């Protein structure tokens, strides 16, 4: 039988804001992700979901995704963008595409916007390497380690562009070349007191740039001895690349705990094919 594979989280992120009405791949495109090239033994990259999150108000338009094989840029999908006026309590446009996409090594996923409006495009992806085929090889397994992320936020920050006070929910572990990353299925948001109408925002950071991926509208709620505070469970199903960080901010000076029940994974070593 053929043995298993090693998996490595490969989060792709870009901000696009330059208008480009072209469907033929010309004009300004942002590179969301470059599937690891074959000379690293990678056999490809699986993109399990793509998040498109506006970082401000939008007018009716389109975001386009292209697959670039290095020679030609192929239009892959168009995502209709409705007119949305973003406010402190109205989330900006969000779309999550769950169609699985498998990219050859070296292939690129790119994005453009019809209008000169700002969008983060985040690809939730993982690259794999094949272990050698061997009837008896025991190699190529994965170890999982629980990694619970905890943070309390209360400093107001109305920015959607990743500036201002942000707090780390969880940092994806990096314990060496076999570290695959961190899987975050969901994040719990729990107010620690009464809340006013507002927003909690979740960002992905590569350590330098912060990309908005979710806004959670917070209702006005009065806490008493018998009235619970706001609580929301935000499904993410995201793979964080080693050293990437999940961060959070709050629109208003209300207190929230953000709790990520996550797991790191470590590939077992194996001879690669």
């Amino acid at each position, binding site marked *: 039988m053929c043995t298993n594979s090693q998996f490595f989280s490969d989060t792709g992120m870009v901000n696009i804001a330059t208008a480009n009405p072209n469907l033929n791949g010309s004009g300004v495109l942002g590179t969301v992700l470059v599937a690891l090239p074959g000379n690293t033994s990678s056999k490809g990259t699986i993109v399990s979901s793509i998040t498109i999150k506006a970082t401000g108000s939008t007018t009716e338009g389109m975001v386009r995704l292209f697959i670039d094989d290095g020679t030609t840029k192929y239009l892959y999908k168009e995502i209709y963008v409705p007119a949305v006026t973003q406010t402190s309590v109205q989330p900006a446009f969000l779309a999550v595409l769950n169609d699985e996409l498998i990219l050859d090594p070296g292939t690129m996923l790119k994005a453009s916007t019809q209008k000169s409006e700002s969008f983060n495009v985040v690809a939730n992806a993982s690259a794999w390497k094949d272990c050698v085929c061997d009837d008896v090889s025991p190699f190529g397994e994965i170890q999982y380690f629980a990694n*619970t992320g905890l943070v309390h936020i209360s400093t107001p920050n109305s920015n959607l562009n990743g500036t201002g006070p942000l707090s780390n929910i969880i940092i994806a572990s990096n314990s060496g070349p076999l570290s695959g990353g961190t899987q975050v299925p969901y994040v719990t948001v729990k107010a620690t007191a009464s809340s006013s109408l507002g927003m909690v925002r979740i960002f992905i950071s590569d350590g330098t740039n912060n990309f908005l991926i979710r806004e959670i509208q917070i209702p006005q709620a009065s806490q008493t001895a018998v009235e619970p505070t706001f609580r929301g469970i935000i499904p993410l199903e995201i793979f964080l690349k080693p050293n990437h960080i999940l961060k959070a901010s709050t629109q208003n000076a209300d207190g929230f705990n953000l709790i990520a029940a996550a797991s790191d994974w470590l590939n077992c070593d194996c001879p690669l094919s």
Partner: protein
Amino acid sequence: MCSKNAQYSANTGNVTISVANPNLNGTGTLGTVIVASQDGTLIKNISIKAIGNTTLGMVRLFVADNLGNAFLLQEVMIPANLQTGVVKTFSTTINNAFILKSGYQLKASTQNAESFNVTVIATNWVNCPC
């Protein structure tokens, strides 16, 4: 040898809480329901069972890190209930699966000075060596 499998062992957590604590910030009296260990602990469900009459109130669940900081995770509203020979005390089960890092703890408190057993059904796992 690198095994596909991990080893699992039951880790059932129990605590009785009865000291009133209205705080949501993790201060005051908290009972420790379970301590995660080995490569991590998977909490499958959490049961809260009153062991007497209850008045309108709240049970709160917290996750505490290795430094002793407790973060409010969930509140469970407790109804007024009069226990008799034929009327059961309050009981609820929370079925959200939750993974807890080794050394972290699940804790609980009660708004009113009433007694509750908090039980966690969980398993620890240990990865087989590569």
